[in-house]
């Protein structure tokens, strides 16, 4: 068993970054995720593993440092919260185009604009539909506990390097700020330059004599060549959709109704389904762990099984509900419920919405 600690989600993410063998973290503080860089600075990871931690001058600088660092085949990571993540979208689009791996964690807060510092899930569209310009998708992992804030860091690196893509970890102020028991995984070694060169023959690590010149760019002024590059990216996205869907089913076996919820809302909904079952209402939860690729097949199977309705619970005005509707295709009822702008819905409100919008509606 690994080391047990009581940690905030943000701290667990930071400790996991060190243990996953990250080479560089570049970030800029913003509530509610500032503990990530605070923890890293206090922990002095350069003394533990040689990992570099740098406070950049802005989020725009952070993401471009990831472009440079990730481009050499190193494991690089940043974290921010909603307004900061918006500033990074240009860089993410460039990295998707140039196929550069990295991790970007978004501890979402209320928006739009500067919004507030309270938990929200209103960055779903930005996360799963692209966010920046151009035809691209990013794998998105949504932790629902402090444990998963730690566990998903090595998972995200595996995806990032397997598919040469930025990977998002999308959490929110609730998971970031709360403390839970976390079992930490053992320290993984950082790769040596030699190991990186062997594993990642695309890394721009200088040009030794006898080695082909390596170029990482998202620019190609020949439209036919750029279209061909896009075909390759689209093939990659179809492969990710076929192979990397992750989700959890909670009490779905006998369920008449399903709540679809991720992250904090999945936790709150678990309390709601306990309350519902005390009243004899059979309801389960489908928790997407990857928001993209979305667990369409799992939803489809529940529709075929005869589920009478789906309630998409998210701290937004209704974003993920569109993906649920696209999958259900009007074969049964789909509605959205959620408080937003930094307001956290209560388990009782979720149960009430299930009754009024799905069961009675």
């Amino acid at each position: 068993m690994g080391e047990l600690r009581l940690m905030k989600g943000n701290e667990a993410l930071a400790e996991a970054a060190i243990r996953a063998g990250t080479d560089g973290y570049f970030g800029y503080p913003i509530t509610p995720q500032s503990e990530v860089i605070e923890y890293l600075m206090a922990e002095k990871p350069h003394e533990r593993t040689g990992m570099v931690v740098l406070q950049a001058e802005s989020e725009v600088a952070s993401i471009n440092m990831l472009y440079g660092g990730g481009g050499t085949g190193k494991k690089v990571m940043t974290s921010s919260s909603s307004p900061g993540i918006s500033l990074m979208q240009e860089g993410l689009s460039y990295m998707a185009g140039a196929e550069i791996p990295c991790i970007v964690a978004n501890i979402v807060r209320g928006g739009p604009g500067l919004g507030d510092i309270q938990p929200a899930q209103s960055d779903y569209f930005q996360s799963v539909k692209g966010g920046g310009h151009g035809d691209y998708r990013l794998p998105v992992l949504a932790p629902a506990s402090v444990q998963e804030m730690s566990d998903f860091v090595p998972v995200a690196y595996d995806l990032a390097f397997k598919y040469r893509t930025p990977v998002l970890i999308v959490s929110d102020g609730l998971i970031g700020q709360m403390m839970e028991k976390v079992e930490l995984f053992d320290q993984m070694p950082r790769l040596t330059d030699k190991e990186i060169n062997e594993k990642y023959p695309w890394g721009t690590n200088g040009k030794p004599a006898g080695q082909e010149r390596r170029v990482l760019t998202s620019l190609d002024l020949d439209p036919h060549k750029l279209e061909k590059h896009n075909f390759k990216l689209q093939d990659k996205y179809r492969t990710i959709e076929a192979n990397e869907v992750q989700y959890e089913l909670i009490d779905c076996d006998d369920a008449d109704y399903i709540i679809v919820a991720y992250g904090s809302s999945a936790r709150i909904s678990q309390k709601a389904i306990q309350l519902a079952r005390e009243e004899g209402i059979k309801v389960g939860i489908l928790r997407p762990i990857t928001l993209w690729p979305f667990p369409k097949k799992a939803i489809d199977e529940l529709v075929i099984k005869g589920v009478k309705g789906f309630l998409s619970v998210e701290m937004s005005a209704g974003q993920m509900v569109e993906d649920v509707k696209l999958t259900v295709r009007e074969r049964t009822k789909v509605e959205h419920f959620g408080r937003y702008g930094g307001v956290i819905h209560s388990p009782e409100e979720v149960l009430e919405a299930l009754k009024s919008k799905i069961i009675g509606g």
Partner: protein
Amino acid sequence: MTEEIIIAGFGGQGVLSMGKILAYSGIMQDQEVSWFPAYGPEMRGGTANVTVIVSDDRISSPTLTAYDTAIILNQQSMDKFEETVKPGGVLIYDPNGISKHPTRKDISIYKIEGAKIAAEMGNTKIFNMVVLGGYLSVKPIVKLDNVILGLKKSLHERYHKLIPLNEDAITMGMKNVVKI
């Protein structure tokens, strides 16, 4: 066993650290725990509160609207949280600074003179440990040994010399909690 607790008072009273020590004590006896503070604008107003859940099972929602126990340490928190105690639940408060005492008849109400006892012991900073002792006397959900282990885990080593004082404060709290 699942115990859902709200601890609420002024910033600087040790509300968050009391919750943290309680959560760590739960971990020491292999339980699941969660600790969620109010970190938003309400914190800027000088009040602090934290929701702590200790359970034998996987914890669902870390935020709640009703609690098994409310530990209340100022009037604003009394106004806000007295009504959130589940029927049959427990309310523990320090009367120091309370002008309107709790009135509910469907819950058990206890008083702990935390501020007064801490002052008598010569260190107002151990106020939160006196209150924690009072709580543990009413609801012994974690063993005292595990609280001490929890203290060791949550305090930096340079403060470990203060653990006996904290233990005394908890013991004093246990002896001095009064049912109303």
